[in-house]
């Protein structure tokens, strides 16, 4: 009884802390609000959600059964199936789901103020994102680790399955292009950043040889060596940027960087993985976990004030200079990772379910790791909104609105309704060791300025330029890891797809197939990257919404599969736990698609832009609409015509895909609800577990206990 009482008191306190923090965020009237309120509002909300909602899903809805052997136990082969300690698996799963996404989206969405993004990140993860991850993980585990595509085919039907496959491949292409675009925008005209990122190549090669031949499997020592060399490379970049003879040689235009990235992506996909991909993977994982931990400590120690207002007018008028469109639906597709990310359903079905020891652990690994990623997104929004809003808009607004000089940018920012003087922009650039910070879109540079401010203020205001480039390097490094790995995954998917028609092509070790499939996938994302970098209307402004829509489309597939399985399990009463997020996700994605396709506002609608381009080309000079969008010449109209056609057709394709999957699933749902036919499920049969809750075999000495 005493124990129960204590527990009760603790949760009441947690709830009160959360309520007070949310209240402070919502009701604050001052110029600034302290980031601490945001931090603790998030933590208290997560704790309550994990303890109550996730537990409800685990016990009542999924009814996890720890006496049932998991595939890791039944099919243990010491390789892909193997019961893994839950804490270790949590780390692996988190490292696999947390990429650059949660760091980029929140920064872009901050143009609408700090509150819309924050609320969506926290509420979205609790009710949608973490639920999706946990249920997908559970259903895949009950099916011996089947992939999302396989589950869609088996539980919904061949049409839903095919739509899921096409969705995955097209998302991959857009995703890789957008991420590569972020790197290009962060490194162009920055000799420091370009040099230190280029140095990661020889470092990775060195690590690869070391791991393969000199000291096989000594991952920790080689990672320590790698990180030390990386820090040296950052110092080296500082020296390069100040040297009059080398700085020019390391200064690249965006198109040169596009070329370098495309060549790099192709080479990385073709080369054996141990040489480049695997060591880079280690390096970026350690950098990622280290930097995130440092950032959490930095924010907790400095508790910086947030300067961005709660809402800006762009939340309502849809005229935001970072990307166009109003709060609904565009906040919800701009912030995907951290709130609800369809991509996770690919990780949660596949690798992780084959390693789970006990069914009940899906709560910690599926729901818990996603909460952690959401926390990363919250830290990103804090880092971006602690900047002066004027500086934020000078960095993130579409570069064509800002002009080239600090004066023109300051003037443009005051046109947005914020004030910043040219002096501040120049001195901020100088403090981080860059020539200019104007129009550095893509989110990464803004986050890096925010992180460098926090880190350097922990250290008494020193070394901001070093920390800025540390942050740039860390983001670019793990974006490149995603580009490597994503290109490789895409290559395998193409080989698999063509292999259905022509068998030999599916052999991954066959060099011609490898080269052709790699070239296809690199060519596809390379095209979007090139188009994005040269887009007269701004690459981030045009491509990021498309990426968000694609990602949320995949979430719709995962939630549809989840709802279908819940109904088949006889849990119609609880099917709302995935059906409600699905309804929300479908509303958001379809509204966004609708606006992107049909909006007559040329700032938003692809086809409105296209019509303006066609009209200009016919008359031979730019019309008023394109002039208002800041197009400069008739060549721009050509590019706008091509880009908007491609983007518009893709938007239509994505919207159709969502509708097909949901309609096809609804057909299955109504069939089941009306009854008559016994639901067909492809769950693996029950078998008794011989492992205790710590993963040791019952009635046997624990493995390794005698050592």
């Amino acid at each position, binding site marked *: 009884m005493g124990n129960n009482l204590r527990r009760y008191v603790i949760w009441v306190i947690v709830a009160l802390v959360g309520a007070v923090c949310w209240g402070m965020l919502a009701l604050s009237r001052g110029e600034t609000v302290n980031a601490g309120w945001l931090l603790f509002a998030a933590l208290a909300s997560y704790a309550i959600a994990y303890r109550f909602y996730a537990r409800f899903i685990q016990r009542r809805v999924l009814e996890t059964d720890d006496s049932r052997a998991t595939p890791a136990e039944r099919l243990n082969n*010491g390789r892909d199936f193997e019961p893994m300690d839950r804490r*270790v698996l949590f780390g692996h799963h988190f490292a696999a789901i*947390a990429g650059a996404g949660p760091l980029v989206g929140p920064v872009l969405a901050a143009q609408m103020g700090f509150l819309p993004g924050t609320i969506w990140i926290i509420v979205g993860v609790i009710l949608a994102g973490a639920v999706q991850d946990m249920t997908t993980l559970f259903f895949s585990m009950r099916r011996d680790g089947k992939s999302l595509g396989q589950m869609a085919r088996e539980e919904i039907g061949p049409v839903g399955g095919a739509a899921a496959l096409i969705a995955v491949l097209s998302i991959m292409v857009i*995703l890789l292009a957008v991420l590569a675009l972020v790197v290009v925008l962060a490194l162009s005209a920055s000799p420091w950043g370009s040099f230190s990122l280029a140095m990661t190549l020889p470092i990775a090669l060195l690590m690869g040889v070391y791991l393969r*031949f000199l000291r*096989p499997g000594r991952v*920790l020592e080689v*990672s320590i060596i790698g990180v030390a060399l990386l820090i040296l490379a950052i110092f080296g970049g500082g020296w390069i940027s100040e040297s009059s003879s080398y700085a020019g040689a390391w200064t690249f235009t965006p198109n040169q960087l596009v070329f370098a990235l495309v060549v790099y992506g192709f080479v990385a996909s073709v080369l054996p*993985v141990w040489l480049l*991909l695997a060591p880079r993977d280690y390096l970026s994982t350690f950098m990622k976990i280290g930097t995130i931990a440092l950032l959490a400590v930095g924010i907790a120690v400095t508790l910086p004030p947030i300067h961005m207002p709660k809402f800006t007018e762009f939340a309502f008028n849809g005229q935001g200079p970072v990307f166009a469109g109003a709060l609904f639906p565009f906040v919800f597709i701009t912030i995907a990772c951290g709130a609800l990310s369809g991509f996770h359903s690919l990780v949660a079905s596949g690798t992780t379910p084959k390693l789970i020891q006990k069914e009940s652990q899906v709560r910690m690994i599926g729901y818990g790791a996603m909460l952690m990623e959401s926390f990363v997104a919250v830290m990103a929004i804090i880092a971006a909104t602690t900047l002066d809003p004027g500086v934020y808009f000078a960095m993130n607004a579409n570069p064509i609105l800002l002009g080239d000089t600090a004066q023109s940018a300051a003037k443009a920012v005051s046109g947005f309704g914020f004030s910043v003087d040219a002096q501040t922009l120049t001195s901020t650039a100088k403090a981080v060791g860059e020539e200019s910070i104007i129009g550095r879109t893509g989110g990464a540079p803004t986050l890096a300025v925010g992180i460098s401010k926090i880190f350097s203020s922990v250290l008494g205001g020193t070394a901001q330029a070093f920390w800025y480039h540390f942050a740039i390097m860390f983001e670019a490094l793990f974006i490149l890891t995603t580009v490597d790995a994503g290109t490789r995954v895409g290559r395998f998917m193409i080989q698999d797809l063509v292999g259905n028609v022509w068998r030999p092509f599916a052999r991954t070790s066959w060099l011609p197939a490898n080269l052709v499939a790699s070239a296809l996938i690199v060519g596809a994302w390379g095209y979007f990257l090139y188009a994005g970098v040269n887009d007269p209307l701004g690459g981030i402004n045009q491509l990021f919404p498309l990426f968000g829509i694609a990602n949320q489309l995949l979430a719709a597939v995962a939630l549809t599969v989840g709802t279908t399985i819940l109904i088949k399990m006889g849990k119609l009463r609880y099917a709302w736990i995935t059906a409600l997020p699905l309804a929300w996700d479908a509303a958001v994605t379809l509204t966004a698609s609708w606006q992107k396709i049909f909006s007559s506002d040329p700032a938003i609608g692809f086809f409105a832009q296209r019509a303006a381009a066609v009209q200009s080309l016919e008359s031979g000079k730019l019309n008023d609409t394109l002039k208002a969008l800041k197009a400069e010449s008739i060549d721009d109209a050509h590019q706008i015509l091509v880009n908007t056609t491609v983007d518009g057709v893709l938007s239509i394709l994505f919207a159709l895909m969502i509708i097909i999957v949901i309609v096809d699933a609804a057909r299955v749902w109504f069939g089941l609800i009306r009854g008559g036919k016994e639901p067909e499920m492809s769950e693996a049969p029950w078998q008794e577990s011989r492992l205790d809750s710590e993963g040791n075999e019952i009635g046997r000495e624990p493995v390794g206990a005698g050592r």
Partner: protein
Amino acid sequence: MSPLLRPFRYAWEYLKEISGENAYDRYLTVHAATHPGKPAMSRGEFYRWRQDDKYNNPGSRCP
């Protein structure tokens, strides 16, 4: 061990586990139990085989 050092020891063990550094040791234990008498792979062989296996069956990751 002194209680002050215990958290560090724990963190180190966790790092070894999560980085796959001690995967070979675990492989040896499992191998001895499941295939008694048969020769096991060397550390280098095991590591190379594991790495190739991992990247030839790629999963996905979040952006």
